């Protein structure tokens, strides 16, 4: 007999699994390929059209992807509704804005401070509130978003309502994007260089890193907390710490997007961080598909580019935007590209033959189970639960069940016993 101090070791798998799918049409590889093609496409684009307008909106769109991927950790993976996410972007933008314009640091040098400030903001807001269940959390985050904006509006150091101007672009050890770059006779100006920077860093950090995070140990912990927090506790996952982690990572990503936005626009003001933008980023995640990398990218692109295409409708554009969203949610309630979706033409694994095991009332059991689940969680409802148990417990002669007091479940139970 094993000693108690020694932990159980997993047995070796005994059944042979079907080989992993190979070839270009394997879902994983195909999606990576599509991603690579899109990345190359985005990299080639400035050679085709490089008007400042196009570059500017594409840079914004990419910053939105960073932002949306950050919120995807919080909302998509961990299932925490955050209605004030833009506040983290504000923290990042203001931290780098203040440090560059008033303390003469370069953008790169502000990065550690931005990360620290965001972690701090994440802990301050998440620490006390993540013990709450989701509805309350949503309200608190909504408040937090407004607090940050109003604080920025009223402080001296943040420039009050007019904000901060003249935020420099990124520079590395004395060389700045503003200097431009000539490669093989082609001149890359500051905006285009910044576009490439956002493309590389944004894709690398936001898309690749976040989607990888979603697949590892932490990603599983987040998803388990989202699906069923009690059970995830029973798996040895500290729900609070896990949620706080999601919150902090979301905050850091949001802050990073903020510094990118600050140097992209070179000016920030409290108006850039209104509730509308929190809602827009949340929309990008929900519309695209919570927890789904391709979905969130599509959502972020839609949310950032659609207003540009709808510019002709001037004041009406947000109305039209709203209608489009409602229609999208009616036809794709789980998002444009749900997390579990696989393109239909991709190869699927061959499902091994399942030995014929009979199952009893799969549907009925599940439904009864769900109903019971809702009650069993509620303490003080013991009689109710026991009555439900009576319904689900195996019984051959239904007529033996009386409907009064404590008797029936017990009676019923003995019936079950007599059977076997």
């Amino acid at each position, binding site marked *: *007999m094993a000693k108690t101090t020694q932990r159980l070791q997993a047995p070796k798998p005994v059944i042979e699994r079907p080989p992993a799918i190979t070839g270009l049409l394997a879902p994983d590889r195909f999606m990576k390929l599509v991603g690579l093609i899109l990345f190359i496409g985005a990299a080639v684009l400035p050679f085709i059209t490089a008007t400042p307008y196009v570059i500017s909106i594409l840079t914004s769109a990419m910053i939105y992807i960073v932002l949306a991927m950050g919120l995807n950790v919080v909302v998509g993976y961990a299932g925490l509704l955050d209605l004030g996410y833009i506040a983290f972007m504000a923290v990042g933008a203001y931290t780098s804005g203040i440090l560059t314009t008033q303390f003469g640091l370069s953008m790169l040098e502000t990065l550690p401070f931005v990360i620290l400030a965001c972690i701090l903001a994440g802990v301050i807001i998440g620490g006390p509130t993540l013990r709450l269940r989701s509805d309350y959390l949503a309200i608190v985050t909504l408040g937090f978003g407004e607090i940050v904006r109003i604080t920025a509006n009223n402080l001296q150091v943040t420039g009050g309502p007019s904000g901060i101007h003249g935020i420099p672009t990124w520079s590395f050890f004395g060389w700045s994007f503003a200097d431009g770059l000539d490669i093989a006779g082609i001149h890359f100006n500051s905006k285009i260089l910044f576009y490439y920077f956002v493309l590389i860093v944004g894709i690398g950090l936001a898309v690749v890193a976040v989607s990888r995070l979603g697949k590892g140990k932490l990603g599983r912990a987040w998803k388990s907390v989202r699906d069923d927090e009690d059970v995830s506790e029973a798996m040895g996952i500290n729900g609070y710490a896990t949620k706080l982690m999601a919150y902090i990572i979301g905050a850091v990503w949001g802050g990073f997007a903020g510094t990118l936005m600050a140097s992209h626009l070179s000016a920030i003001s409290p108006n850039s961080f209104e509730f509308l933008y929190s809602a827009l980023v949340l929309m990008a995640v929900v519309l695209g598909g919570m927890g789904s990398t391709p979905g969130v990218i599509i959502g972020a692109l839609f949310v950032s580019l659609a207003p540009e295409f709808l510019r002709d409708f001037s004041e009406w554009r947000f109305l039209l935007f709203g209608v489009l969203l409602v229609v999208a949610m009616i036809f794709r309630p789980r998002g444009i590209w749900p997390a579990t979706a696989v393109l239909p033409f991709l190869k699927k694994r061959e499902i091994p033959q399942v030995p014929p095991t009979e199952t009893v009332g799969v549907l009925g059991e599940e439904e009864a189970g769900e109903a019971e689940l809702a009650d069993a969680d509620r303490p003080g409802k013991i009689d109710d639960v026991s009555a439900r148990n009576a319904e689900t417990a195996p019984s051959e002669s239904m007529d033996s069940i009386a409907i009064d007091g404590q008797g029936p479940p017990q009676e019923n139970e003995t019936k079950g016993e007599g059977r076997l």
Partner: protein
Amino acid sequence: MNASISNDTTAVSEVPSAAVGRTLLEVSDLAVSFGGIKAVDGLTFSVHEGEIVSVIGPNGAGKTSAFNCISGFYRPSSGTVVFDGETITRRKPSYITKKGMARTFQNVRLFKEMSVLENVKTGMHGNLGQNLFDAMLHTPRYRRSEAQCTEDARGWLDFVGFRADDELLVTQLPYGEQRRVEIARALATQPKLLLLDEPGAGLNHNEKNELMQLIRKIRDLGVGIVLIEHDMGLVMQISERIVVMNYGKEIADGTPVKIKQDPVVIAAYLGEGDE
């Protein structure tokens, strides 16, 4: 009815010998109440290493509440739970799981948006050596730990007799298979003690027999097992000791043979005056 309790003595498994290991779990005088209702009222029992103990009782007797207290989901109003030499009363469930107590739930509660494999891997959370940056950068350490984790998860799935595709979503599985996945997920936490809350509910006769074999197999690994079960046939065959509860109170504790002949137990099940 009485006959059915006392006449299948033949099915009773070997009575516990002195060979049981050291004490894993000691519950003493456990009580919890919800708004005046005493769901558990003075429960005392212990479980040894490699022992199967069943907790039975009529519906509403407080069995699941007792489980929830032991595994940390409810805060007991009084009493203590000592697990593996440490008092774990009022500890968080995640802490208790890390200490080596795993549990399943009365209604299968799997993570619905994850595949079978991911569900089992989630159970290994505490034993994986990888951090945030490993996952983001896909370091060799990350690849190693994920590969090991996948293999272990498949090992547990095979151990519990799961035969369907492990990359299916759990909601695509029939009920019986979901039960197996839940047990595999609990085993993946590397428990010393496993609490099974009605593992046989909703299973047919064959599946129950397989379940019984599985429980014995788990016991043979040296894991202590506490079982809540309604199916007397299963309980009588498999248990080494049985704790009987009624109205939150413990009314009997003993070997299956003793329990079957206990007039208090019979009265609880059939109502007073029946004997």
